[in-house]
């Protein structure tokens, strides 16, 4: 299995996320875009650790060619972090919504700075 499609996919995901952040004004959409970016990066990490034709790194007995286990561990951490950031973002969004009654992010007003 070639890794190039996955690299392209992850680049695509990151680009989509960036595009979302750059073009959307709705806070929820922004958070979603962030998450998409996160997913893209996670995919990138896993892809990087992948060896074409390797197996899962479970070392019992006759293991031959296995993929690098470290990226997978990293991805786990990254996912956790991503989720927590997302959760915090949701909380902040809710607080913001409660205060202003809006999810739009626009120039001036509260978002002036």
């Amino acid at each position, binding site marked *: 299995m070639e890794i190039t499609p996955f690299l392209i996919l992850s680049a695509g995901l990151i680009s989509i996320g960036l595009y979302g952040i750059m073009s959307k004004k709705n806070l929820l959409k922004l958070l979603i875009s962030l998450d998409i970016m*996160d997913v893209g990066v996670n995919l990138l990490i896993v892809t990087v650790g992948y060896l074409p034709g390797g197996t899962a790194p479970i070392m019992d007995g006759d293991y031959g060619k296995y993929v690098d286990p470290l990226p997978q561990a990293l991805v786990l*951490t990254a996912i956790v972090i991503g989720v927590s950031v997302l959760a915090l973002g949701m909380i902040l969004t809710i607080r913001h919504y409660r205060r202003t009654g809006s999810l739009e992010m626009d120039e001036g007003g509260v978002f002036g700075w």
Partner: protein
Amino acid sequence: MVVHPTLLIVLPLVGAFSVSLIRRYGGGAIKLYGSAYLFLNLIISAVLFMEVRSGGEVTERIAGYSPPVGIFLAVGAVNAVLVLLINLFAAFNYLTFNPKDKEPFHRFTVLYLLGVASSSGIVLTGDLFNMFVFFEIAAVSSYALVASSKDERSVGSAIKYMILGSVGSTFMLISIALIYSELRTLNLYDIAHRIGEMGGAVRTAAFTFLIVGIGVEAEIFPFNGWVPGVYGRSDGNISSFLVLGPSKAAIYAILRVLITLFYGSSSRAVMMDIAMVLGLITLVVGEVAALSEKDPKRMLAFSSIGQMGLILIAISLGSAAGIVAAVFLMVSHASVKSALFLSSDVYRQGGMRYTLTGALSVGAVLGLVGMPPFAGFWGKWYLLSGAADEGLWIVIAAVIFTTAVEAYYLARFLSRGLSMKKRGGVKPTRVITMTVMVGVSLLVGLFASVIYEMVSAGVTTLLSGGI
């Protein structure tokens, strides 16, 4: 090894996770509990500092795995200074929080302790991914701390901060992935020595993404859009924490990246140039923007940007003088800018009319501009002499220009503060903290040799790709 550097990270984490246990004893008890951890941390970092001072670098492996496989903590001269600085100021800064303002206080304490732990972690760690994790923890706690400010609009700023920070951390992660894909290691020093093996394009991308990713936290223009908003709307003591903790850690991370990580890279000179240009732009943009800013907190925020640019310039000189200058500037900035942020809270209440607060603010301003015998003077002296040695007169010109601008707006800040009407008191804890901060700046300036000797001894290994 008398103390384990790990304790500096572990202790606040323990504190953070155990603080909810005592939440029913009220805010005072929680504050006591939190302070106990922080001051313990302070003592440990002081011991660590002494140890590094006497015996050179200290390293510690986590969980017994030896590098490059395992994570390890590496304490050299520079980060020993920095970790002491962070813990010292963080401990005193914690005293300024009033439990009644920050209900529920135990949650606040959790965030604060996490922030301290992760800032120390960034400074101490010798592992790239570990650094990233600490960055994320620091960032998350910062977002939450900012959002806990009195000014409700701070939530909006926190959201901005969060989005920019997340993008930055994504970039960092991309860079980590790229480096890992080539070198199969995450140990900083291992990478440093094998960076030449990386392909040119990948290395370029890795550097770019990494510098941008850290740059967001380290307030480097143009990645620092969040700074004025966050500092402008947060409480002064939260801003001061951000200044002394995460942002110092982040600029130190840049030092690691520039000096250590890409040590062996063939295009390191260009990277240094880029960093210098970034620093120059940041310096000028920050200071000039601060000149036209009328809101005191936001003005200090812009001023912070400028100072960060100055530190970045010092780092990017890449010489011993530059590193020494950077350390002094970090000490100076962490101490006096935090003190100024503390005073900015009572600014509009005429707090500066109180003799001691006023005197401390004046002292902080003097320190920030770089008057001897404050620490900032040695920072600027070594920065300028380092720049002069390399014939970078444009840097010197920029520094002179921005210093004049800085002096102007800081004096305006002072003179306004000194002519405000008295409308409320200044809490003694705040005065004590400010005294400690300004005092440290003064003492470091007076006994500059302590830090100078230590850093200049350690800087040789640092510059040759060591710790």
